């Protein structure tokens, strides 16, 4: 897997600066209004406050109970740790956001009235409106998001992509979109502003990495509801327990009941939930992908069908000559020479690959060109061939039917046979003729990217079906898809066909992801459940998709899918762990609570904890420490192994379910031993 963690601003987990910043953030987050956004931590906070009041009252009345003070302190620590986790996750994005913000400020725009104007009016970028035209020249920063409507320029987009190599932006092409905050390196372009200030791409990115504008994803909302429901159940349990105990003969200390409540409610997942979400988005940004919504990231984890463009994704962008096939008794070397000569002035990638093949395989040299007086015939769309005239010799290269109609019936039968054979293997045949006699064929071939086969195998393991989209004919498409290992293909694709395919898959109940860059991809990108637009693409495509890939690398969908899955998994594993922990906490706290009412309850103290006070305190300390101990897991995400979902379920259930049952028994016992070793409380 090609992990490109380009963002050097990323700091390690134990960076002291970062920790200091997070600690400050954690205290600020103790504000009730902020705390209330997370029901579980809010409940824990209220419990801690309630416990403080009681402990304080006892201190004032001169009957302080040391265990109550300890417990109260650890309850506050639990809340603090939860805030701290969130603050750590946020502060990791802060530094990055700051550098982005620098790009946003200070920019001035040269606004012009008409596209051909040279006179401009200098206004701050923040005053620009949608539809304004601005001129940007070499060395200047582009003041806002938009499309190039005139000119061509090289642009340094390293502020947003982290990639230092400049990219080309050109009007009227699929590479017309520019981003505010990037710098023009050469030439002059006119940009039509497409987004209002404050809603630009850069603003979105800043909001995203900071986690400030983060909205809960649908699944996160559902989980929050489930956790709140559990907290409510435990509230009923703990409140009624005081009544049951009263009936049984003795009131329980309220602080102990509060401790039981906080121990039971799922603080582990509750405290880490938002950190998981922020860290997940952060991981996407690390892969240079901007998600417009958390919903899209979650949906990415569920993708059943993945539509990939052939060109640039499955294969290298261009076809290459793979073979020269002579006919009619012509020697191979003769054919090669004709091919070379016909392609010397051909600047297309195919033409260059023909020259390269002639050089590499037949040891020819393109310097041959200097030997003759040559007249090059450029390609023209009517007769679909190109070539060269050298004195009386005319060499032509072109589409088979064109060459055949030029040459008449000479070797037509043999030539057609070879053309058919090449086409059947998915290649593109060209014919070469000399003085109206067919010499042979050139086999142009799509070259499948080297590691792509393994990537598709991995996707298949994850249960994702890949469909290759290509404008090729079905035979070519079939051959390439077989070679690359995709599951299916859509040949002779048009925008309508793509849209139809996506709708068809969705009607079958599948979630579809696709990536695209051109304006004609926009409808399909909008229709797909996850549409990844390439950053090099048009504004239309970037608006239609719900994610933007800054590297414009379509195979990155695999990583996006994995991040989506990881996001859910981190939540699931911590929820399971949190709930399973409650069993051990009961065994610690219940005997401690009830032993005063029924001395025989000591039999339930299977961990043999030192005293009732130390037992309750140990459970609370464990509860707080496990929260902070799991912060790295929340930030890095649960481990994802590509494979069937059932296997992941089993593995995580074993590790976090069974582990969650056992771990707290060991943890609570150890803490209790420590507490009692230091003289108890």
């Amino acid at each position, binding site marked *: 897997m090609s992990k490109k963690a380009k963002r050097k601003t990323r700091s390690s987990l134990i960076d002291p600066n970062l920790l200091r910043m997070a600690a400050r953030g954690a205290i600020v987050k103790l504000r009730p209004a902020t705390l209330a956004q997370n029901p579980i931590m809010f409940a824990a906070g209220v419990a801690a406050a309630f416990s403080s009041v009681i402990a304080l009252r006892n201190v004032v009345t001169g009957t302080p109970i040391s265990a109550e003070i300890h417990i109260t302190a650890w309850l506050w620590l639990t809340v603090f740790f939860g805030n701290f986790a969130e603050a750590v996750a946020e502060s990791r994005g802060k530094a990055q956001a700051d550098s982005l913000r620098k790009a946003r400020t200070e920019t001035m725009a040269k606004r012009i009235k008409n596209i051909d104007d040279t006179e401009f009016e200098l206004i701050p970028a923040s005053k620009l409106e949608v539809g304004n035209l601005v001129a940007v020249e070499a060395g200047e920063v582009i003041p806002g998001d938009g499309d190039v409507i005139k000119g061509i320029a090289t642009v340094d987009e390293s502020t947003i992509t982290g990639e230092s190599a400049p990219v080309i932006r050109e009007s009227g092409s699929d590479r017309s979109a520019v981003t505010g905050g990037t710098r023009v390196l050469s030439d002059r372009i006119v940009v039509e502003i497409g987004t209002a200030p404050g809603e630009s791409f850069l603003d979105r990115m800043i909001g995203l990495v900071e986690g400030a504008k983060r909205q809960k994803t649908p699944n996160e909302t559902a989980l929050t509801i489930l956790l709140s429901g559990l907290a409510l159940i435990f509230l009923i349990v703990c409140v009624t327990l005081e009544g049951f105990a009263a009936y049984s003969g003795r009131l329980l200390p309220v602080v102990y009941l509060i401790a039981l409540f906080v121990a039971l409610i799922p603080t582990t997942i509750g405290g880490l939930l938002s950190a998981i979400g922020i860290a997940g988005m952060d991981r996407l940004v690390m892969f240079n992908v901007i998600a417009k919504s958390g919903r899209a990231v979650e949906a990415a984890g569920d993708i059943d069908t993945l539509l990939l463009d052939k060109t640039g994704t499955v294969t290298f962008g261009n076809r290459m000559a793979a073979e020269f096939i002579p006919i009619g008794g012509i020697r191979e070397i003769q054919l090669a020479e004709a091919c070379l000569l016909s392609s010397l002035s051909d600047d297309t990638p195919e033409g260059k690959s023909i020259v390269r093949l002639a050089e590499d395989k037949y040891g020819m040299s393109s310097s041959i060109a200097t030997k003759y007086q040559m007249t090059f015939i450029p390609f023209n769309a009517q007769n679909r061939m190109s070539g060269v005239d050298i004195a009386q010799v005319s060499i032509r290269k072109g589409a088979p039917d064109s060459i055949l109609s030029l040459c008449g019936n000479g070797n037509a039968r043999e030539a057609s046979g070879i053309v058919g054979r090449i086409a059947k293997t998915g290649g593109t045949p060209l014919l070469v003729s000399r003085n109206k006699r067919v010499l042979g064929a050139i086999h142009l071939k799509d070259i499948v990217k080297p590691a792509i086969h393994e990537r598709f195998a991995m996707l298949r393991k994850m249960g994702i079906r890949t469909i290759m989209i290509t404008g090729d004919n079905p035979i070519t498409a079939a051959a390439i898809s077989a070679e690359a290992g995709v599951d299916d293909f859509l040949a002779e694709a048009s925008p309508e066909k793509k849209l139809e395919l996506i709708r068809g898959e969705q009607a079958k109940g599948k979630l579809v992801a696709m990536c695209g860059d051109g304006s004609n991809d926009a409808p399909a990108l909008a229709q797909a459940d996850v549409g990844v637009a390439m950053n090099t693409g048009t504004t239309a495509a970037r608006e239609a998709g719900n994610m933007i890939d800054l590297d414009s690398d379509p195979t990155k969908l695999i990583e996006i899918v994995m991040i989506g899955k990881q996001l859910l*998994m981190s939540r699931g594993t911590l929820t399971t762990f949190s709930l399973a922990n409650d069993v051990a906490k009961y065994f610690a706290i219940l005997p401690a609570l009830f032993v005063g009412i029924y001395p025989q309850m000591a039999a339930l103290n299977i961990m043999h904890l030192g005293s009732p006070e130390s037992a309750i305190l140990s459970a609370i300390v464990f509860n707080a420490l496990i929260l902070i101990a799991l912060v790295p897991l929340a930030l890095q995400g649960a481990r994802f192994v590509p494979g069937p979902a059932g296997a992941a379920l089993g593995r995580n259930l074993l590790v976090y379910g069974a582990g969650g049952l056992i771990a707290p028994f060991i943890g609570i016992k150890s803490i209790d031993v420590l507490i009692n070793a230091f003289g108890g409380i």
Partner: protein
Amino acid sequence: MFAQVLAQLALLAIAVAAVALPLSFLLAAQFDKGNVPVAKGFWSSLFGPAFGTEQNWKSYLLSALVFNLTGAGLLFLILLFQDHLPFNPLHADGLSPAQAFNIAISFMTNTDWQAYTGDETLSLLSRMAGLGAQNFLSAATGIALAFAVVRGFVREKNPSLGNFYRDAGRAVIFILLPLSVVAALFLVHEGVPQTLAASVQASAIDGGIQTIVTGPVASQVAIKVIGSNGGGYFTANGAHPFENPTPLSNFVQMVLIFALPAAFLLAFGRMVKDRRQSRSLLAASVVMFAILFVPCAHYESKANPALSGLAIDQQVSEANPGGNMEGKETRFGILGSTLWATATTATSNGATNAALDSYMPLGGLIPLFNMLLGEVVFGGVGCGLIAILVYTVLTVFIAGLLAGRTPEYLGKKIEAREITLAVVAVLLHPLCVLIPSLASLAAMPPGGEPHSLTQTLYAYASASANNGSSFASFDANTVYQNIALGLVMLAGRFGYAAPVLAIAGSLSSKRAILPSGGTFPTHGTVFVILLIGVIFLLGGLTFLPAVALGPIAEHLSLYSR
């Protein structure tokens, strides 16, 4: 002993399977028939257009409520004025309003909690037109609700869930009535009376005259066990020789108690066209039942330490049943009693063939725990399937997260709305059990025995779970308890049905997603383990503190002597 337990369980399992399998075909067929949208059919021509139209979840629930409350109102009036109505040969008095309210709600909600003692309390009319009718109608309501809930998973982009009247009507005519007729005939053969004579006079050996209450017992016992009602003709319920005369009648009744709940689990796979789903729900239920039954039988077959000083032989031997035989019938023994107790509390039936009050603390904890779980192990007719589906939805949610996929069950995405509603449903039970129990206990002097805490907890668990069994020493026939328990039964039935139907309505409006390689399977061992884990963990965590002060404290005191 162990071999005997296994043999008994195996025999029961085989017999249940033999009855439940054909019944599951019948259920699935009725489900499908109620699935076909019929604008004008038999039902609508008979009862008006409302009976033939498709209903969304709200109007389905409303119909169920209107229908059941009307029935309960009628029953309430019959009970109140039974002394002025015909078929009252023993001249039973009219009941007090509080008691009539309690009984009316109890039989309407399929709880069949019997807040009356004495077999002469009710007239024959009250029994047949009142209780008997509600026995059928409450079971039919359960079946209809289950049909509606399953349609939520089956239907796509269609908010309607069928028609309540049609479903309930089909349930009575094609399922409950035929089954009851066959079962009643068998019971008569075993010696259960079926007569309109209310009593017989017998000359006792000592020369006195004894009045023995009898009546249409077989028909009521049949629907009592088939419809997970549990309300006996006699106060002694299944322990009375006229209700349950022989070991064979005991066995057959147990099979019938399981028949429809098991058939529902089996039919579920047919209804959703994926039989593997049935297998996993069934496997989870069987495993949970075994986990619950074994400790119950174990603690009951052990000697009671309180009696160990006395000249009582508590050892198991050929001639001596051994163990804790207090309150148990010798014709059933420890096994027959504990298996019955586990079965009727697991299935929300609530019929009893022994005094649960006299069970050992941990032996009695099992029936209590069954109800605290919310009748999810097989559960009531229809309602059991609903209960395990609610837990399945929650389990699927957690499983989805664990597997890294937004959760879906049977192709339907489980999202915030479904989780909210499932949480409301799950929250209802602790609310209805813990708070009213506490309110009851608060009226008693502090320093009470753990056993009375257990009794109270048992009463409200039984009411909230619509089970109906009880610890006999609990004094339920007070105005407060009659009304409080009645309200809890009502909440346990319709407070639960409302959010669950809402889940179904929400799911049926969604499009279904085809399973792919990324979908985690909701069949297979891992999911079954997780489902059992969620059910036990949620039930255990919610009620363990209260239970610790009841049966567990009692157990520890008893054994620490």
